[in-house]
């Protein structure tokens, strides 16, 4: 009985947030239809959700699609989650993702004819290194100058977009095509394992999640990261170096997001255009928040958002509801999570864990209240 109560305490808030956001989604669909086309059509909302569900888990192909969508979200969520645990807000997952993909495509093109057993690991490694560099920069800046990662990582996101465009239009452009496009990565592609598009990344990501859990909760390094995230002053007192931990954490977080970009490139598109990009980076934030920076929670949240993303295409085609609705749903889930004290009162939940403990640290370092030394 006590176990069930503990499970409920952890799961209650996210569950309620999800349900409330579904309701909000219905309202948004109906209201906007009313506003834009002056039609009152509640059936549209039902069509939308039905399409969403069938498009995500209705068929075997849909399920595989969901898993494929969930993979970069899982890795991205781990990236943001690790940063959260360290008291950092990695909004730069987007840029790290892109640079990781860029590095992967650059390496993959070189290795496209090499034996698979060499091409895949090296290309993956290139992506990880690219992402790590893109995470290292804001980490270093934060540790040395105190420049808050919220602003620097967002700036780097834009720089990443520009860099990607420049590279694809320049050195990486394959000759013989009108618009900038790279060659495909050949043997450096991740093999398809399930169905039509289920690539090997589907298996890699959960493995990384397990490693993440192990690192965070069973190792001394994980302990240090969590202490630095919860209280940098106490970390110094304990003989740790918050400065080094910040750099380490941002670099590893960047590496994870870079891995997300690399697997996505190697498994799905296999080449790159100048406008390559998704909103995975921001979705990863939602995944990490919903999953409470907990490895199992992140896996579940990634599956949920992956399902939404996968089904959104079907929703747009079949019901005519724009795919951006998924973004709205995500934001409302987060909103209800953040407003959890109010929800707790309304639903008379006691003992349910609210919000994010580490959150106060990244706000305090933003305002200079806690210095990283």
């Amino acid at each position, binding site marked *: 009985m006590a176990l069930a109560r503990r499970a409920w305490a952890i799961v209650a808030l996210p569950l309620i947030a999800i349900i409330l956001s579904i309701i909000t989604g219905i309202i948004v669909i109906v209201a906007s239809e009313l506003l834009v086309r002056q039609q009152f059509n509640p059936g549209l909302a039902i069509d939308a959700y039905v399409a969403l569900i069938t498009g995500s888990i209705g068929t075997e192909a849909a399920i595989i699609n969901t898993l494929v969508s969930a993979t970069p979200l899982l890795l991205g969520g781990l990236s943001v989650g690790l940063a959260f645990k360290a008291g950092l807000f990695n909004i730069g997952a987007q840029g790290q993702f892109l640079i990781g993909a860029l590095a992967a495509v650059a390496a993959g093109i070189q290795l496209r004819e090499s034996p698979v057993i060499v091409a895949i690991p090296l290309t993956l490694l290139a992506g990880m290194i690219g992402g790590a560099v893109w995470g290292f920069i804001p980490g270093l800046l934060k540790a040395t100058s105190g420049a808050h990662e919220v602003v620097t990582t967002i700036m780097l996101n834009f720089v990443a977009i520009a860099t990607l465009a420049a590279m694809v239009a320049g050195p990486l452009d394959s000759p013989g095509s009108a618009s900038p496009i790279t060659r495909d990565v050949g043997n450096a592609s991740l093999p398809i394992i399930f169905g039509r598009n289920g690539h090997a990344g589907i298996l890699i990501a959960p493995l990384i999640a397990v490693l993440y859990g192990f690192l965070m909760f069973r190792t001394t390094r994980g302990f240090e990261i969590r202490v630095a995230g919860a209280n940098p002053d106490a970390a110094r007192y*304990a003989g740790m170096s918050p400065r080094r931990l910040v750099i380490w954490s941002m670099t590893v977080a960047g590496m994870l997001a870079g891995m997300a970009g690399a697997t996505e490139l190697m498994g799905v598109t296999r080449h790159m255009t100048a406008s390559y990009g998704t909103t995975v980076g921001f979705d990863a934030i939602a995944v990490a928040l919903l999953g409470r920076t907990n490895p199992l929670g992140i896996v579940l949240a990634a599956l949920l958002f992956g399902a939404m993303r996968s089904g959104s295409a079907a929703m747009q085609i079949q019901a005519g509801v724009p795919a951006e609705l998924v973004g709205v749903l995500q934001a409302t889930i987060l909103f209800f999570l953040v407003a959890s004290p109010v929800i707790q009162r309304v639903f008379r939940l006691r003992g349910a864990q609210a919000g994010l403990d580490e959150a106060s640290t990244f706000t305090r370092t933003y305002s200079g209240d806690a210095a990283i030394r």
Partner: protein
Amino acid sequence: MEPPTVEAPTAVHAPALEMRGITKRYPGVVANDQIDLEVRPGEIHALLGENGAGKTTLMNVLYGLARPDEGQILLDGEEVHLTGPSDAIHRGISMVHQHFMLVPVLSVAENIVLGEETMAGPVFLDRKEADRRIIELGRRFGFEVDPEAKVGSLSVGWQQRVEILKALYREARILVLDEPTAVLTPQETEEIFAVLRRLAAEGHSIVFISHKLYEVLEIADRITVIRRGRVVGQRLPAETNEDDLAELMVGREVNLTVDRGESSPGETVLKIEGLRVNDDRGHEVVRGVDLQIRAGEILGIAGVAGNGQDELVEGLIGLRRPAGGRVTLNGKDITGKPVRSVYGEGVAYVPADRHRFGLVLSFPLTDNMVLTSYYQSPYARGILRDDAAIRALADERIEQFDVRTPSADVRAGTLSGGNQQKVIVAREFARDLQLLILDQPTRGLDVGSIEFIHRQAIAKRDAGTAILLVSAELDEVLELSDRVAVMYGGRIVGEVDGRSANKNEVGLLMATGGREGGDARTPDASGGTAA
């Protein structure tokens, strides 16, 4: 601004302030239980009680920051219902808080007028008029104040004067002072007492909240003692003494001084030579300190906060890089070595700010218990932690040091202050130590916890550890230390024997650093006076 007319204290008038049957409940605790308090015009009335007895709650009720569940407040015999601080201020009640309610980056004038701004028109402030009034007010009570000085640059004693000016600017008739002497030297305390007596002579009523027995006996006209939310006695100073008051405060006979016995010091353990340390802004705040501590000896550092003590300790232990000098431990040079290696030499540090440095409040006691040892075997093998070993340690220490907690899994933040400090003590005291550094070890704790920690410290001393005690509570320093060093302006300005030390002498050193006289002009924080 005319002072109120002087009322002869023996005249039969309604008391200036009366609180009848005040009861205030918070979840799980009755902070005030049927409290009666009566203050006459021109009276200095002391409210005595230990930390957590309910004094602050009572004053919050008086100030309108909390509404009582039962009871009445009467001003000049008339019942009032206070809706908030504004209301209280308008009725002439002003409070000087224990932790100053001053905004450091704003000027003296801005701090004083905030909330009761002197205006030039509907929108803009009238700086000139405000400055003029403030200077005049200061003069009336014997000090020259610079209204444009930034409060953050003032010494603590001067900040307190600004707080009092704040109250007087609002024409307060009833002044409530919450632990006003907590951060003052004995000399500054005398100066504030002189100001208070002048205020009382002019007819103001003063409520003086404190836990310092001898001060209360010196300044008060009447003393009301509170314990656990109830009034347990009222005394006239002439009819009582420290022991009587202490017993009332705590409810049992209290040994005011821990029997510290004789110390038998051994070899020199810690040697500090010419240590220089800078603060966060790069100013040199430790200006060449020489100290020595022997094994089995307690050296206490007395000094007003802000004279470099924090930086001295941090520079000593490796949390701050010294700018010069040498620190040796048992002959080994540890100057500037990182914290962890210093700990490894057998040094432990109990920090002043336990929430900020000593604990991670959101983590369970198990994690907190290994905060400084988590990487050592048996708590970790390589990078792998051993949860079972950590748990066993935590359970053992909790038992050993009598930490009141339901289990070792609760978050440290849920414990009371005293128990939190016990956790830190349990963690740091429980191994063989060469040197133990205690920084404000009993700040904000109840008497029971204070006794406990003092006894533990003496025990450590008797076991041969050298102990460095830094405390703003001069009594604590004098009570525990075998030798006392006074720190002023970043230097050690005097060293005396702990037993034979004359409190006034030490206090004088703390206040002036051995130089002649004080100064009535607004000095800056380093103790020098503004040019």
